[in-house]
């Protein structure tokens, strides 16, 4: 009898503690995310509603969105973003899985050299060498095409992705499985596709998430290479709004543009959240 009361007390204590923590967290996140909430509420106002932004969600109109949609040439920019991101990530995954697996399995000095050589690339920033990059792509005749940012997105993501893939193969693909396949007469290619690829799926998800989101959001390479309006991506057309910042009367439309450019990836996140969380952690927690 006495025991159960102590248990009940404990449970009550835990319950109260949980409520307090939850309330504290709610307050913290409301403050932390307030810039997003205020800009969202502002984007839902008519362009001429200039009352204080602190009076949140007092008007729901899509007028600002309409104006921003037109100015962004939305569907064209969206298509450009999708083409560039998907091509980059697809090439990246193929190239990185092959290299990452191979380097993990080349068990000699060349293997360890390659691992360090690829990792060292993380130290390079694109700003350091964008002009020679431009010269090389120009010499091949593709400096002003979508191929230019695609090739550079693949390249700039290689170092981290190879590093992640090598670690994942070493920790999660049992060498004995591959040996068994070899004894059964499977060649390297078949072993790779039937045994290795299924086992490194979490690493592939991690590469898609950790590299795909920044590629989708990047403006630097597209800004450097895509000059014709018809090629511009969503982040790039956002630069057209910089002038609006000087003019307080344009902020509603500017915020609408911000949300329009974020909506595609927010939708993807809403549906594939599970993969985002596991993808983010595969690299850092396992490695």
């Amino acid at each position, binding site marked *: 009898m006495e025991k159960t009361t102590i248990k009940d007390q404990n449970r009550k204590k835990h319950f109260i503690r949980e409520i307090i923590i939850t309330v504290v967290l709610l307050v913290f996140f409301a403050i932390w995310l307030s810039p997003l909430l205020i800009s969202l509420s502002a984007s839902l106002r008519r362009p001429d509603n200039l009352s204080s932004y602190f009076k949140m969600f007092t008007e729901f109109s899509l007028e600002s969105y309409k104006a921003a949609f037109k100015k962004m040439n939305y569907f064209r920019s969206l298509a450009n973003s999708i083409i560039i991101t998907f091509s980059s990530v697809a090439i990246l995954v193929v190239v990185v899985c092959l290299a990452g697996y191979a380097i993990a399995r080349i068990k000699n000095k060349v293997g360890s050299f390659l691992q360090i050589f690829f990792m060292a690339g993380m*130290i390079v920033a694109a700003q*350091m060498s964008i002009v020679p990059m431009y010269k*090389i792509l120009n010499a091949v005749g593709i400096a002003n095409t979508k191929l230019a940012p695609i090739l550079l997105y693949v390249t700039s993501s290689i170092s981290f992705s190879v590093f992640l893939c090598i670690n994942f193969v070493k920790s999660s693909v049992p060498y004995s499985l591959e040996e068994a396949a070899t004894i059964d007469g499977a060649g390297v290619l078949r072993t790779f596709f039937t045994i290795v690829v299924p086992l490194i799926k979490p690493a592939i998800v991690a590469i898609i998430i950790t590299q795909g989101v920044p590629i989708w959001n990047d403006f630097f390479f597209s800004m450097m290479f895509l000059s014709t309006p018809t090629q511009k991506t969503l982040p790039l057309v956002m*630069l057209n709004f910089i002038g609006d910042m000087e003019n307080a009367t344009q902020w509603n439309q500017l915020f609408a543009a911000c949300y329009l450019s974020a909506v595609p990836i927010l939708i993807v996140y809403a549906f594939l959240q599970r993969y985002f969380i596991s993808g983010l952690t595969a690299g850092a927690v396992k*490695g």
Partner: protein
Amino acid sequence: MIKKKTRILYIFVIPALVFYLIFWIAPVLASFYYGLTDWSGVGKYNFVGLRNLKILWNNGTLVSSIKNTVIYALYSVIWGNIQAFVLALILNMNIRSKGFFRTIFYIPALFSTIVIGFIWSYVYAPHYGMLYELFKMLGLESMAPNLLGKSKTALIAVAFVERWKTSGTLTIIYLTGLQGIPSEAIESARIDGCNAWQVTRHVRIPMIANTITVNTMLGLISGLKAYDYIFTLTHGGPGNSTSTLMYAVYKLAFIENQYGVAEALAAIAFVMILTVSIIVLLIMKRKEIEA
């Protein structure tokens, strides 16, 4: 047999290696070469040896951009990791709404740098921004700070925006690390009489030491390469107070047309990031073993 297998494995590396050598390594080496010339970005150029370094030293760009970069990176890494770790500890306390908080915490990471730049330009804007209105509401209008406009506060204000965007990611990574700790390890420490702080210090931290190292290294390298938020929020100003190494390189090359000087600075940045990363990595690895 094994030799043949290894040969095929080498072929597997070739596509990645071709991309990497042509578009990453070769341009960097070319840049270092241009750093020894007086090239303006177009036309002919002369070989000038180390003159560009002297220019960077004499006009103060070298010292100020290194200083700004180091402050930015240190602030990002130290504050970012502490905040993320503490939040992960709180979220790990078996809170029912943990999943919900984790979901919304990642949302800022989904927005592009440019969009984040616009939103925070509004937050910081003097005379009508969010912070200004907040001070006005509290009747402290005259005390409202102009964080991006003052050279003393601008750098940290920019670094804070990057923290704001990425701390959800960091917290999720730490949270996953904490959840991977076997509960027996924590139980037995409790039975041995450890209090909450001791459990964290002697059980949790050592068991996620690898995660701490990875987060620190990635944060450090990206902090030392800081460019995006400077570009969208301050363009290096006021004065040069937020001009980091990468922003200074960009500005010299594309705005001031001193390409040779820009690349000399890039070469210094490269050597600096490489050295700092190796030193910090060695220290972290040693600590990992000690812990």
